[in-house]
């Protein structure tokens, strides 16, 4: 499980703090302590990293740790053998969903796998039914579903509305689209967790002291809430999409020789998408790089 307390490398990515609760006083209302000021800081942070960055060679990752931990530098060398590029996402608590969004849509755009598009649409319809059965009024989620399906249609080429790769990047940086798609994934994730609450309950109890429903209301549905393994498992299962996560942290194994831990999240059931339009069969086509508190996108060689 992700350790939110873990110190962040070089302070580059800010962990989103857990929600404050159960305090007797709300306190701290001096003029220096307004939300307004906080959002100014966030806005400045935002200018540095767009929601979805440009594709950068993996060497930029090594440069970031130049004078950092030797273990990390060794691990980056290992990554460098398998991966050619990284695409960063903004550290705003939505980075897992945002990385997933871009990576998936980019895959469809590049592979034009129409069978996969039909497959995921069926899963999306299942997710819609799940939310309805859980008692969510349609009006709360339908706009988010419609916006995702629209993006999915638009990455299919040969239509008037078809997106080029540049346009996909542009849309992923447009808050009015990007945040809606992120929220679509949050709905899907929340629905899946609640539908299979007996499966997810033990994981959730390990993270917080709350019920499954409370967890979804406080840690899945609000924008900016960071994702943990629970979120990844649920999203991967609900949409039927395998996800590989490479872990860049300071952990090392005793057996000598540095390796980079990874985990493949393989959906529980149903038809899996064909692997990829290129290279290696059998590995997930979405690969994310995890550093404590943050996810970016990795590109295999």
């Amino acid at each position, binding site marked *: 499980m992700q350790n939110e307390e873990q110190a962040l490398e070089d302070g580059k990515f800010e962990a989103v703090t857990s929600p404050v609760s159960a305090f007797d006083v709300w306190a701290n209302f001096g003029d220096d302590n307004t939300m307004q000021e906080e959002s100014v800081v966030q806005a400045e942070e935002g200018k540095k990293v767009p929601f979805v960055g440009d594709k950068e060679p993996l060497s930029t990752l090594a440069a970031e740790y130049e004078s950092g931990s030797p273990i990390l530098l060794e691990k980056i060398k290992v990554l460098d053998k398998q991966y050619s590029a990284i695409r960063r996402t903004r550290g705003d608590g939505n980075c897992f969903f945002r990385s997933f969004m871009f990576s998936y849509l980019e895959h469809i755009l590049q592979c034009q796998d129409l069978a996969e598009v039909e497959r995921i649409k069926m899963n999306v319809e299942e997710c819609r039914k799940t939310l309805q059965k859980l008692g969510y009024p349609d009006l709360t*989620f339908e706009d988010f579903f419609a916006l995702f399906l629209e993006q999915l249609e638009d990455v299919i080429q040969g239509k008037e509305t078809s997106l080029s790769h540049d346009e996909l990047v542009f849309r992923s940086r447009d808050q009015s689209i990007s945040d809606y798609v992120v929220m679509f994934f949050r709905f899907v994730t929340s629905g899946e967790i609640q539908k299979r609450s007996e499966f997810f309950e033990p994981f959730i109890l390990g993270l917080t002291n709350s019920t499954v429903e409370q967890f979804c209301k406080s840690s899945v549905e609000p924008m900016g809430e960071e994702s943990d393994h629970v979120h990844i498992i649920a999203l991967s299962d609900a949409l039927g999409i395998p996800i590989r996560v490479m872990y860049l942290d300071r952990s090392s194994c005793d057996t000598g020789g540095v390796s980079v831990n990874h985990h493949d999240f393989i959906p529980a059931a149903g038809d899996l998408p064909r692997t990829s339009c290129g290279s290696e069969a059998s590995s997930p086509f979405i690969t994310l790089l995890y550093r404590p508190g943050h996810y970016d996108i990795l590109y295999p060689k």
Partner: protein
Amino acid sequence: MTSSSAAARKALSKIASNRLQKELVEWQVNPPAGFKHKVTDNLQRWVIEVTGAPGTLYANETYQLQVDFPEHYPMEAPQQVIFLHPAPLHPHIYSNGHICLDILYDSWSPAMTVSSICISILSMLSSSTVKQRPEDNDRYVKNCRNGRSPKETRWWFHDDKV
């Protein structure tokens, strides 16, 4: 005027306006028990009459809630959800009408609606065992005299027992 108050005057986006229209229709078909929406032609500001639930400290009392919506509702929480004067006497409601309730601020999500906010507020009223202001009422209200909206406060939420 703070910049945030200025933002409150920005017109609703198309998507926000559509969503609120849908919420309004749903409200008319299926209003939350204990609430009456006062119909106006202003979609961006709802004034709602609340009646305390029977068998609670607020039984038969009526209050007015005002809900203002931002340009990017529901991605953003309502600009403010406040009680108009006089606000109910409650340990989490300040005399200026501001309400200390996490879903209105940090825990907001687009999965919520005006109707679900109302239900949470009524449940907060119903579970109260004492009619009194928050301990820090005077200090807080004095601090808000410049017209600050409750969204700009960094809230530390009271326990959820009340």
